[in-house]
Structure formats: C-alpha cells, structure tokens
C-alpha cells in the first residue's frame, strides 16, 4: 500500500502538486521529511535571491543517521516539492557521516551503531555524540 502510494504520488506529483501530495503521503506514513524539505527549499531560495542567482545547480546537505531524517524520504519529497522554484533543476547531494561518540569517562572517540552509543574503548555508558546527528545545509552551487 505504502509502496503504491509512493509510486503513484511520484507519478502524479507534477499534476497534483506538493500540497496534495503532502495530504496523500501524510495520511499514510510519517513524512516529517516534507517539513524538512520545505525548510531546505526556502533556505536555498532565500540565498539564491540574495545573491541574484536565477537558478541553483547543486544542493549539498549533511544528514546524519541520528538526525531522524531519512535520506530517501527527503530525496523523494525533494523530487516533487522543488517544482517551479529556484531548485527545480538542482541536483541534491546527500552526505551522511558515521555515528561517532566521545566517552565522558575515558575521552576516547569511537564509531558506533545508531542505537548503541556506548564507548567501545572502555564500555562507558555516558557519551556525547560528536558526529552522525547532522541536519545541515552544507553548500549550494548557484547559476550566476
């Protein structure tokens, strides 16, 4: 069912527009990626306008596994929602970093699974995430 909706939404995206799509997708699955995509598009549009660029060639975002945003869902939202704006023809590059934590006990940094954020050096249970929770617009390439 969900697969069908996604395919169907993708196919009809150009006709029904992003708002209707939001309606269709929103009633079926969790798509906060739509909100994130909306925020992304408005940030990009703002910068493009400020710099007098007509269009955007490339958008690079950093989406960590701990950001709570699913890269594929974001890409799907982007494909539909970018229509008609500065980003209509832009390539979306999604960079994702591995999850890394710093141990509050021994100070060691270790790469961990997304749901096991413990120190791999000393087994410490108190850590701070130092990579993998990014949710950032890194750069955009403008058509000047």
């Amino acid at each position, binding site marked *: 069912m969900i697969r069908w909706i996604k395919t169907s939404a993708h196919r009809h995206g150009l006709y029904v527009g992003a708002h209707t799509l939001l309606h269709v997708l929103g009633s079926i699955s969790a*798509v*906060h990626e739509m*909100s994130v995509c909306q*925020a992304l598009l408005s940030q990009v549009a703002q910068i493009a306008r400020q710099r007098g660029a007509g269009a955007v060639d490339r958008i690079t975002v950093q989406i960590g596994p701990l950001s*709570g945003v699913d890269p594929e869902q974001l890409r799907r939202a982007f494909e539909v929602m970018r229509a008609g704006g500065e980003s209509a023809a832009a390539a979306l590059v999604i960079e994702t970093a591995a999850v890394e934590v710093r141990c509050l006990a021994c100070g060691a940094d270790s790469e961990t699974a*997304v749901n096991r*954020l413990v120190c791999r050096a000393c087994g410490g249970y108190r850590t*701070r*995430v130092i990579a993998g929770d990014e949710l950032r617009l890194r750069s955009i390439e403008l058509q000047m």
Partner: protein
Amino acid sequence: MCQTCGCAITLPPSAETVAAAGVEGSVVDVLQNLLAENDRAAGHNRAHFDDHDVLAINLMSSPGAGKTSLLEATILALESRYRIGVIEGDLETDNDARRIRAHGVPAVQITTGTACHLDAASVHRAMHELPLAELDLLFIENVGNLVCPAGFDLGQHLNVTLLSVTEGDDKPLKYPVIFRASDLVVVSKTDLLEVMDDFDPGRAAAALAGLGQGTPMIQTASRRTPSIAAWLDWIEAQLQMRGRAGVYRRISARNPLVRRRTETGAAQA
C-alpha cells in the same frame, strides 16, 4: 520585537543574516541547520516560557501509550499546588483537549490534519491562547508518533517519552532518535505487566542505557489504581528549580535539539 505576536522579546538573528557565509566561485558554503527557522521560533517560545516562569514539558509516545491518561492523573494530583496548562496535538478531533478541560484546566487543541508532528510555529500560536502569566507548568502533548516529533524543537524545557508495556521493550533500540532526545522515559500502564509478561522493564532500561545519555526511567500506571508517585517526584524536582534565574535554560541546554542549534551556531562563528 517579536514579528509574529508583537511581544517584546528580542529574536536571535534570522536565517537571512546568517547566509553571508563563504563564497567560492558560485558555490556558497552555508553550514546552516536545516531546521534553523523552526529552532529560532522554538527559542522564541522558550523565551516566553522563561519570562513567565513556566516549565514546559513535551510529552511524546506512540499513539495510545497513555499520554492523556497520565496528564489527567497528574492534574488530579497537582492541581491544588500548581497551575497547569495543556497544549494538545492531534491529527484530528479535540477529544483529548476536552478530556483535559473537564478537569478545569485550560487546554488548547492543535489539530495538525496531516502533519505528523507539532512544530514551533503551531505551539507559538497555541501558547498565545493560554494565560501563560497564570501558569506554573505547561504540558505539550505531541502527536502520537515515535519518529517525526523527535527532530522538532518546540521551545520546551524537557522531553518526556512514554513507553507503554503493551509495546515492545526494545523500542529504544528501534527509535533511538526520540529516546536519545528524552530527559525522562516513563514506562506506562505497568498495572498491565502481569498480563503483558513479554515486556521486561529491565530489557527496556538496558536498551535505553545503550543510548549513552544516562536517561532516567520510571514506571507509572494512570488508570484503575493510579500509581504515579515517581513521576510526580520527578516533576516536583524540576519545579523546585523555579525562580532561580536561567535554571530552566540550563535544563533545556541538555536537550540534543538545543545543543544542535548551539553547536551549528558555533561552527558558523
């Protein structure tokens, strides 16, 4: 001056002023949090709460984990000592807000329609329908969902996530983002533990500990024979810090969402 509500709270610099980052050819390095606009609005809400000395707690869980029941039991237990307000988020209906209002507590319903989470702007609108100056404690009951609400700062000071014993005890492993962002995890409906014997609170605690935050976990039962003492103690402990300047701000600084904004800001500086 707040552009949206005309109140006298100064806002941090907006997205437009941050965009002046490095340029190389036609490539603009931005390094801006994607939810900067939401986070800015959330910071504004938090400033309102701080100004009125209101402690704001965001309640999250899957649908049906017992958020509203816990709130009802909490209101009954605390209403003689604290002035409580509630913001209810739901996809449809104002049933939950009506349940809360029946206890004589002001409640504003946000009907999100198709949106699967609350955001700072919707909370801002709801907040101005509440008599903030007359409140001690504000509960924001988020839309029942363990995925979407996790990433959106609303301006709350504390995040509480409920995990009912009718769910799997491995939920913290499956939804690490929301559980990591929690200041407290409440295992709810524990009066059903005798029949839901595949839920092991020990396993849930171990899964939560594995998220590296040292997040406390307590148990509650809100209906039939209410047993919410640990929860009330926790709230009291948070409320006791009231009145000490900036304390709530320090509480919220532990929140990964708030930290994310701060660190992104630092990276730009």
